[in-house]
């Protein structure tokens, strides 16, 4: 082929890749601006302060109330509960995988955990309705299983794979010299794990937790199916709660476009977006810190 043609193709390809690349980035930026735009439209009608601190979410009442505090607290409550379950389990499993399990066992467990990550959330929600929800109700003596605790258990299951994978990477990234030093002064495997490896991998573990939190906050279908969705201010783990994601999922189909209620749901989405963004940024910060730490 002639050089001129080849160079032209090269130029054209470069242009094509650049254009698609920039276009994709523009579209993804568009998501952010769409949220912002609709949120601003909402804040023109409702004061941001009232939105954040209002304790009543009742958009179809007279007068309509747009206070997202109960939703925010519900989301936090369910996520907190999920983390209480998932963090110990996740760190334990990751430690087992990185320090105790043999090669063969690991090659079975790793894909198993990835499989757990890929179970669609609606399938987990379904099993909750049939099996876990009634189970939790009878164990805790409640009349029904549609409460925050139930949601927390499900979210724990869903965020576990993320936590395990990232924690394991962090634990395995701890230089062997650390462990060897610990063994040489007479510490056993457990003491080394608790006193040397885990502290050394702490930033990585924090990053794992953050990613797990992000997963739990954003999960929609399982909480929608499992938590009862009462919009009252949450009173505890045995009460029905309604998370931000569930609120969007419930109400979005039922609002006419460009009404205050419609904008309100985008405002919730914007808060949700900011929360996950914050969690991800913190997570990323710890990952980077951990990398530097390792390099040193």
């Amino acid at each position, binding site marked *: 082929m002639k050089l001129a043609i080849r160079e032209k193709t090269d130029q054209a390809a470069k242009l094509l890749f650049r254009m698609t690349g920039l276009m994709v980035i523009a579209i993804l930026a568009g998501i952010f601006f769409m949220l912002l735009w609709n949120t601003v439209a909402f804040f023109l009608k409702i004061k941001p302060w009232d939105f954040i601190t209002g304790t*009543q979410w*009742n*958009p179809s*009442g007279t007068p309509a109330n747009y206070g997202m505090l109960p939703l925010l607290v519900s989301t936090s409550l369910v996520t907190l509960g999920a983390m209480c379950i998932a963090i110990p389990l996740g760190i334990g499993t990751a430690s087992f995988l990185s320090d105790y399990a043999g090669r063969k066992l690991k090659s079975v467990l790793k894909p198993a955990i990835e499989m757990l990550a890929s179970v669609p959330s609606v399938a987990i929600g379904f099993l909750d309705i049939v099996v876990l929800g009634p189970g939790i109700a009878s164990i805790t003596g409640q*009349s029904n299983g549609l409460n925050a605790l139930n949601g927390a258990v499900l979210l724990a299951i869903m965020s576990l794979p993320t936590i395990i994978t990232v924690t394991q990477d962090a634990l395995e990234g701890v230089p062997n010299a650390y462990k060897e030093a610990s063994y040489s002064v007479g510490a056993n495997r457990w003491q080394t794990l608790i006193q040397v490896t885990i502290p050394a991998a702490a930033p990585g573990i924090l990053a794992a937790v953050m990613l797990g939190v992000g997963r739990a906050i954003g999960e929609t279908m399982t909480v929608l199916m499992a938590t009862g969705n009462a919009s009252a201010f949450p009173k505890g783990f045995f009460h029905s709660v309604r998370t931000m994601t569930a609120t969007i999922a419930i109400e979005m*189909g*039922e*609002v*006419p476009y460009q009404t205050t209620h419609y904008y309100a749901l985008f405002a919730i989405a914007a808060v949700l977006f900011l929360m996950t963004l914050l969690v991800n940024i913190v997570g990323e910060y710890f990952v980077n810190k951990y990398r530097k730490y390792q390099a040193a």
Partner: protein
Amino acid sequence: MMKYLLCLLIILLVSCSDAGKFIKVKGSDTEVNLAVSLAENFYKEHPDFSVAISGGGSGLGIASLLNGQTDIANSSRPLNAEEIMLLKTKGIPIRTVIFAEDATAFIVHKDFHLDSIDIATLTKVLNGQYKTWKPVTGQDMPISIYGRQSNSGTHSFISKKLKMEFSRDAKEMNGNAQIVEGIKHDRSGIGYVGAGYILNNGTEQPIKVLKIIAKPGSIAVSPLDIKAIAARRYYFQRPLYQFIPLTSWKKVSAFIDFEKSAAGQKIITTSGYYIILK
């Protein structure tokens, strides 16, 4: 490989169907299962039509109507003033069809101590004034209300009929069916569902349908009592609406005709709803 995918893409792109035979029906969880049965049997007579049904709630249907996303908006409540105004400002003329009658049933667990309830007590139970069943049945159990989301037609129908706002502690379930499921397992629960959700008169499930006493001293009426419904004696009975934008009227008229045919009417009654002769 790439060529193969490209072929698929082209097939996909070409496969936009004739919009004239495609009907979107949206809204009303109360009516959705009925609509499914109607669509299924309609297809047997008119295989060239494809009908897509989405449930969700009456609010979804009406919102889709306002957003121009539906050909038939099912609703278990009439349009409110704001919606009529919005339809006017958006310039969407509609036709209204009342195709069936529903009786909203209040259900409790099979072992519940009462068989009937009067309107005043029911109001106090639902608006959160009573926190436990003690003043009603004598049992010291907290009341758990199984309801629908605030955009549901049934939800607004009941709060209008009883002139009250629901307790904020009421659970908001995704659909009528989930309410029935909840009540089955919850001895302290009370919920409301469309009559179609009470299967086989409620005899096969561990639930009980409460009879309603409309006025002090009057007799308790069950929502499953066909004669009472026909005489409009049940307190919570209501027409089921279908709102159709005029622009879609031509293509959906075959479906509406089917609803009104003998076969359609039979499906409505076997699905647990009522037909009221005017």
